[in-house]
């Protein structure tokens, strides 16, 4: 049995309400809230980045796994907002988490999908017997250009998963990819803010890839939406996963626990993985979960995951998403600009 042995998340403590941002730019606050269904988003302080958040989430994941850090044989980090263009996050984690030095390490990028590709990569090494445990992380601290709509949803966070075959809290029974060259969203090297491809966001990108990956996985398994207890989708806003659920035929009560974007914003590579953490922290043993992370460019991985008897006990072994959501300090737009380094400081 290969699956999730431990998991951990990190959400910064500061929050800004989307209405506060809207008021700063003269948008109608209620219209913005209704458009994205994002109430507030997590704001990393100036000393937080994808390295620091990976360390925090990774420490919790290893604790929940109940293993010694020296047993981790692989570390993969999926991110599109690395502090260095060249210098890996994963090697800093070796020393910050105290693993051995004989660890397969790499940072992966596929817009918001790479966190889930880290899980797939770790699964492969565990399944082949090359490593005992792999640590897979999705993290982002991306930026939206001030005054542009992306700013309403872009959040900050990390989610880490220890993948292995002993003491599994949730078995990953199948993964199914669906990828095509789609110009929906990109960021050129050296440019701080991403750009949307006019006419390609939404239908031809997110919905096509998420729905197809989910449908093909269910066909392959001979399963239907009513066989699942939870469905989790990538969440650039809360409207998209709700719509994906309704297209596929999942009722609201099966998707709501997997949606956290309304409280922390879009954490990109961590987004669906954060939803999964919240679900694992609430799920009963034997729960069947469909998870479909998506990344622009564009592709989706559809996962079929089933919790074991250990899930309840492991949920109690570390800080939960719900605890992070409750610990917050609101800031106004001027502090937001300062904390996110959106004003140029010399």
């Amino acid at each position, binding site marked *: 049995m290969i699956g999730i042995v431990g998991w951990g998340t990190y959400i910064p403590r500061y929050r800004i309400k989307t209405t506060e941002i809207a008021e700063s730019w003269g948008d109608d606050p209620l219209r913005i809230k209704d458009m994205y269904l994002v109430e507030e988003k997590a704001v990393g302080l100036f000393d937080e980045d994808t390295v620091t958040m990976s360390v925090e989430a990774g420490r919790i994941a290893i604790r929940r796994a109940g293993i010694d850090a020296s047993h981790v044989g692989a570390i993969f980090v999926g991110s599109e907002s690395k502090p260095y263009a060249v210098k890996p996050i994963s090697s800093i984690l070796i020393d910050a988490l*105290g693993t051995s030095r004989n660890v397969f390490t790499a940072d992966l990028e596929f817009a918001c999908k790479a966190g889930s590709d880290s899980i797939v990569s770790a699964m492969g090494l565990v399944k082949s017997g090359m490593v005992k445990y792999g640590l897979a992380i999705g993290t982002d601290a991306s930026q939206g250009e001030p005054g542009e709509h992306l700013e309403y949803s872009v959040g900050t966070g990390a989610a880490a998963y220890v993948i292995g075959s002993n003491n599994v809290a949730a078995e990953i029974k199948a993964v199914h990819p669906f990828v095509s060259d789609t110009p929906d969203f990109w960021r050129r090297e050296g440019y701080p803010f991403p750009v949307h491809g006019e006419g390609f966001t939404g239908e031809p990108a997110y919905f096509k890839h998420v729905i197809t990956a989910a449908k093909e996985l269910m066909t392959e398994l001979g399963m239907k939406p009513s066989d699942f207890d939870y469905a989790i989708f990538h969440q650039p806003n809360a409207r998209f996963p709700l719509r994906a659920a309704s297209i596929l035929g999942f009722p609201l009560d099966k998707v709501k626990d997997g949606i956290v974007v309304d409280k922390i914003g879009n954490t990109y590579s961590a987004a669906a993985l954060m939803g999964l953490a919240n679900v694992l922290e609430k799920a009963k043993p034997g729960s069947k979960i469909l998870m479909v992370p998506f990344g622009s460019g564009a592709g989706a991985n559809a996962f079929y995951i089933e919790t074991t008897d250990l899930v309840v006990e492991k949920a109690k072994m570390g800080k939960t998403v719900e605890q992070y959501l409750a610990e917050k300090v609101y800031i106004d737009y001027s502090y937001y600009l300062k904390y996110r380094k959106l004003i140029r400081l010399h």
Partner: protein
Amino acid sequence: MVEQNLSIPKYWRRTQQYYRLVATRCAKCGKTYFPPRRVCDCGNDALDPFELPKNGSLVTLTVLRSVSVDFEKQRPLLIGVVDLGGVKLMGQIVDCPSPTALRAGTPMEVVFRRVKEDGEHGIIYYGYKFRPVKGCES
């Protein structure tokens, strides 16, 4: 406290200490050292490395409004002394915009943060800081 004026090699040699709070304990008399030492006051040179606990309590703090040029844009800077399992450490306190809520005994946790960066093109230094476990509303 993570030192601010270190060269890259000097900093790199201390990453275990700055990243994971690795201290040493004398195998003979049990005395602990952070920063870690190789030889104990008792003369014994068999010291075992161990990680300090990541939770502790606040001993004292001070608010700095006049700071070095690297930290000017982070003012006011909160510097505190935190007791981690009997070892007292000085460090920056973050995630607390209203320090009046903090007092001796407030539960604190260790966080991993950026400490400093060498301009826009240089290396980023990471290390430990502290924050109140339960937020900082009074």
